[in-house]
């Protein structure tokens, strides 16, 4: 059958060069009809460029594409959609204050009447197991439901090829199951799916074929069912990845104590924090899991000091710190690293040197009587770059010019180099490639083994389970009682992630 059935999309010798980076280097690829094809690679391997070429967002310098046995060179995404290519992005483009149906209507190229669209959405949710109520306001929906809106929007245009970019990064385990069922059903009906992910186990379970990219080149085509995760990981990175080493620390003094903390969110569709109580001791990592939008950002802002809280809800070494601002907390030894790198943890238009001043000016004595000591600050920036393996040719480079992984290593390095007594990190390895992620996790573990107390908030469940001593889940702004991570079973974790999510 395979030989008589021509591929739905065939790429030959696709190349694309940006100013001085070869993003795609002579890539040839074949996608079979009705197959789920995994596209794997680290950040910067060229996955997004390739996908953007297929979706008409970027024009290749060289190479040819054949889609549905016809020459294919889309001018723009509209042309790609018209030809039968749909794409679901990692970040959704939805209006929070509009309903599901209104959002879908806005994104369609063809004109629909509102009522017939509502009927079609209902029909489609039934057919593909995509539970959706077209009349609901998007702001009230979970990440999984929002993703379903994007999928339905694509499916309404009857795509032959559906591109999914890191679709499970925002989903709960149950939602992932539902998504996989939908995707399998679509593939059975003949839709091909190009599935971009870095979660290797998922790829092995779901995909029929796979391609690994590295440095813009195709490294290997493989059969996911017959390749182990560690083989795939090594092919992606190009070298062996060391597993993290964990050492236990023995001191157990209580550092941070959060008592019955409730905070109203400051943004319209944010999550209110409800009655959160937590304790964290020296030398331990408390992992906080949960899907996006469960209150992670709000919790971090409360801990940094950017959101003020009621008296005696946050105690640091027995002292009420709820009214202290971020700098005052830093001077006591409580450091934080927000999720959003550019704009929150770092200023994009400032050099790495200047960015050191945001959090380290006091601890490292970078400012004396108001005057900045640039020599010392540059030295500190260079030390971070060396210790934390930040790949940038110069510490005078602007923060925005670094890749996500390098900037994150720099920013985590900036905090860890100050020897904090307590540290709170939100999404330590979000959008960071596998080897950098490993590096950051090991650095956190090393710090904790010297007695620092750490709270790691992450949506990457595997990461939390790997490094945390105790685990809890943030669901709809409330938290379950933390449990010792090593004694948790998969079903217990699933339960913690989904309890009290019903209200």
């Amino acid at each position, binding site marked *: 059958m395979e030989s008589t059935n021509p591929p739905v999309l065939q790429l030959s010798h696709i190349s694309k060069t*940006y*100013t001085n980076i070869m993003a795609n280097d002579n890539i040839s690829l074949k996608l079979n009809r009705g197959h789920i094809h995994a596209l794997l690679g680290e950040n910067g391997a060229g996955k997004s460029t390739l996908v953007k070429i297929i979706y008409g967002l970027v024009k290749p310098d060289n190479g040819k594409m054949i889609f549905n046995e016809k020459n294919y060179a889309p001018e723009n995404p*509209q042309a790609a959609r018209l030809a039968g290519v749909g794409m679901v992005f990692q970040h959704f483009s939805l209006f929070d204050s509009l309903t599901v149906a209104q959002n879908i209507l806005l994104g369609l*190229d063809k*004109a629909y009447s509102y009522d017939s669209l509502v009927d079609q959405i209902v029909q489609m949710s039934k057919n593909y197991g995509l539970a959706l109520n077209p009349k609901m306001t998007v702001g009230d929906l979970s990440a999984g439901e929002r993703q379903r809106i994007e999928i339905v929007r694509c499916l309404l245009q009857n795509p032959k090829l559906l591109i999914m970019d890191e679709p499970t990064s925002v989903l709960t385990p149950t939602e992932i199951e539902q998504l996989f069922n939908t995707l399998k059903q679509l593939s059975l009906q003949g839709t091909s799916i190009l599935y971009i992910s870095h979660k290797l186990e998922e790829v092995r379970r779901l995909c029929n074929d796979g391609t690994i990219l590295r440095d813009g080149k195709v490294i290997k085509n493989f059969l996911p069912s017959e390749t182990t995760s560690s083989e795939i990981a090594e092919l992606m990175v190009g070298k062996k990845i060391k597993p993290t080493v964990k050492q236990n620390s023995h001191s157990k003094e209580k550092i941070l104590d959060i008592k019955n903390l409730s905070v109203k969110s400051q943004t319209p569709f944010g999550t209110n924090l409800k009655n959160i109580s937590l304790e964290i001791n020296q030398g331990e990592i408390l992992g906080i899991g949960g899907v996006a939008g469960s209150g992670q950002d709000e919790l971090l802002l409360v801990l*940094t*000091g*950017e959101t003020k809280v009621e008296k005696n809800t946050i105690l640091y070494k027995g002292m009420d710190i709820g009214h202290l*601002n*971020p*700098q*005052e907390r*830093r001077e006591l030894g409580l450091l*934080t690293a*927000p999720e*959003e790198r*550019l*704009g*929150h*943890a*770092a*200023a*994009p*238009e*400032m050099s790495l040197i*200047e960015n050191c*001043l*945001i*959090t380290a*000016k006091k601890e490292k004595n970078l*400012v004396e009587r*108001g*005057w*900045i000591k*640039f020599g010392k600050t540059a030295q500190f920036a260079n030390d971070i770059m060396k210790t934390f393996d930040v790949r940038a040719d110069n510490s005078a480079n602007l923060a925005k010019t670094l890749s996500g992984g390098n900037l994150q290593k720099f920013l985590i390095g900036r905090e860890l180099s100050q020897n904090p007594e307590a540290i709170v990190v939100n999404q330590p390895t979000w959008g960071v490639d596998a080897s950098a992620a490993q590096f950051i996790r090991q650095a956190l573990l090393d710090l904790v083994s010297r007695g620092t107390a750490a709270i790691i908030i992450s949506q990457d469940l595997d990461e939390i389970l790997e490094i945390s001593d105790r685990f809890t889940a943030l669901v709809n702004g409330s938290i379950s009682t933390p449990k010792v991570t090593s004694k948790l079973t998969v079903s217990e974790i699933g339960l913690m992630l989904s309890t009290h999510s019903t209200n």
Partner: protein
Amino acid sequence: MIKLTPRNNQSKILIAITPIIAVLFTMIFGGILFWVLGKNPFEAIKLIFWDPLMSETFSDYARPQILVKASPLILIALGLSVGFKANIWNIGAEGQFIMGALISAGIGLALYPMENRLIFPLMVVCGTLGGTLWALIPAILKSRFNTNEILVSLMLVYIAEQALASASIGILRNPEGSGFPGSRNLNQYPSASNPELIAGSGVHWGVVFSILTVWFFHYLLKNHKFGFQIKLFGDAPRAASFAGLKSNYIILLCFSISGGLAGMAGMFELTGPAGAITIDFNVGYGFTAIIVAFLGRLNPIGILFAGLLMALTYVGGEISQFMLGIPAAAIQVFQGMLLFFLLSIDLIVKFQLSFIRNKHISRKE
């Protein structure tokens, strides 16, 4: 529809020479404007840009005048640039300029005819304070009630103008002025006057202060944490709050600095070139300084040159009015063009423009 996408590799040279390109465009389109008005464009451009500096007929008068006109522009623009860097928009420097002049005139005239060396420094301090206090009105309203500082500071200019008119026919009117509006001439009151320090040079205390301030700001913004703080606040407000900076502190500080320098400029103008409070005491330095701040790329050294260039167009404009009868309004349009071209060339340098036909957006009723 026009679509803007940020350019990945902005040319540093192009960004640096944008002000020069803007000046050239202004010459071309200004020339067209003068030609439409029936004047010889080449003659007009030469009168504006060349003759004030180089011609024998005009340069004796024009060269000192350039310094006299540049100094308030530079002082005010320096103050404004600090706020603009932090994304805090004080548009009301004109009003703060007036208030600085009014308060210092009040102090000086209250002490008339006492002679004392301390009177002039006291007036400098009071003029600065007057500008600061006037600027703190929009700053406090913004920090307390989140009002729009652009609107409030602009509206306060008109209030200041009314106060100026009222003072010049009322409380500050010269008792020996036979009923004419306007105050006593401070140039005839040695303790309160701001004469030329070197005869014929145009250099008065305001010129000295503006050059010192350029140097001081250049050093301060580069090496002091204050320069870092306003840059951080302008670039990434959330990172500033993460760093522990209070936004209200930055807002009040930026308005105090810009208001204070505008008030100081008003004081030097009053005691020097103007001499007295009159109904039409202010001539738009506070607004033109906004152009100067941007033309100088919000950089102290850049502002020094931009202030001199703008003063040149003022003086040259006067000469061309006098020689060719070009209306004053046309000269103002000409100066406005300079900002327009600067901003639009900036946009083209920093962004890629593409024109898209929106055929895909049409839909059935």
